[in-house]
């Protein structure tokens, strides 16, 4: 994943072993799904050194879920798009791994919990006040949402440059600066934010029934009806 990750637990000290287990899990995911590490299962699958049937059951499950998401997003969430001639499930893996770690910490007794990974987050036991960064004016937040339980993911063209491409054109989408999605799980929120962002002008229409905030290049901010409920 190559992402900085914070766990904040407000209500009590969770057993150190539970935290170690959560971070151990995240390290395992990193080792297994990395597209940078030539020895990871994903790299070996892409190199043809590992057959899909020999892959770890969780690798197969993640790839199957990528396919489901691809179908559910009109092909805009596409694990085959980022990497020419190979599969890159990174767009799902981070959210999914955080969801699993989150569930583990909840089982260990954490009630007021926030896991943030590279600007995407999952919370429980709120109210949590969550600032949504304005993609154009970094000294401002575009919105503040209050969330008790759930996930928030933002996809956009940030200073790192465009790294989400429209799988149909191979080019970064035009006209949209960022898409923020609220959902029950981070895997879902993140994948949907990525897909809606990749859709460009079609994104707001596609996400109308979801809980989404889209910031367009002309500074218009589009909120879906359900998103309005979360505004601070």
């Amino acid at each position, binding site marked *: 994943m190559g992402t900085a990750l914070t*766990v904040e637990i407000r209500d009590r000290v969770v057993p150190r072993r539970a935290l170690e287990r959560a971070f151990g899990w995240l390290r395992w995911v990193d080792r297994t799904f990395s597209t940078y590490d030539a020895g990871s299962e994903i790299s070996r699958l892409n190199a043809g050194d590992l057959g899909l049937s020999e892959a770890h059951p969780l690798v197969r499950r993640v790839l199957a879920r990528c396919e489901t998401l691809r179908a559910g997003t009109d092909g805009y969430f596409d694990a085959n798009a980022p990497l020419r001639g190979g599969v890159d499930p990174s767009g799902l893996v981070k959210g999914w791994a955080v969801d699993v770690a989150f569930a583990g910490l909840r089982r260990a007794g954490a009630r007021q919990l926030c896991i943030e990974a590279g600007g995407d987050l999952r919370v429980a036991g709120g109210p949590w006040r969550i600032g949504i*960064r304005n993609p154009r004016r970094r000294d401002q937040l575009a919105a503040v949402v209050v969330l008790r339980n759930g996930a928030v993911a933002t996809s956009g063209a940030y200073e790192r440059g465009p790294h989400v491409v429209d799988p149909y054109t191979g080019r970064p989408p035009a006209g949209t600066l960022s898409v923020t999605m609220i959902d029950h799980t981070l895997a879902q929120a993140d994948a949907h934010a990525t897909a809606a962002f990749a859709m460009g002008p079609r994104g707001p229409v596609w996400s109308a029934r979801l809980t989404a905030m889209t910031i367009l290049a002309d500074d218009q901010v589009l909120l879906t009806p359900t998103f309005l409920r979360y505004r601070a």
Partner: protein
Amino acid sequence: MRRALTILALTAAAVVALARFDTEPPRVKNPLSALHARPARGTPSALQPGSRPPPNRPGVRTATSPPMATPFSLVQVQVTLTHGRLTGVETVALTGDGPHTQALNARAEPILRREALQAHSARIDVVSGATYTSRVWIKSLREAIDLARRG
């Protein structure tokens, strides 16, 4: 990838400290007063490995993270803890190569610093839509806090 693992490990250490720290009652009446007591920023000698100078006042700890690199810039953060609470954040080094990066950093840095203090005051708990610089900056912040707490 080894680098990513280190981040996770360091974060784990910081988390335990944070979880414990939240149970302590706040002892600083005016956190902003500590902001004025910080050393001057931006000297070229700032780019040194992470350090922990001896505390000059009881209960006050200062630490500087090691310089960390983004593909665009170097980031180094200094924090001041007063009785374990975050009372000052200083970006002692933030460099970039191209004019683009410098322009972005010039805007990003004061915001990030304000957010750290805001987050402390619980007005905003967390920010969605982080940038590359902010990730590294937050990492530097955590390292500095970690160093200060261990000190």
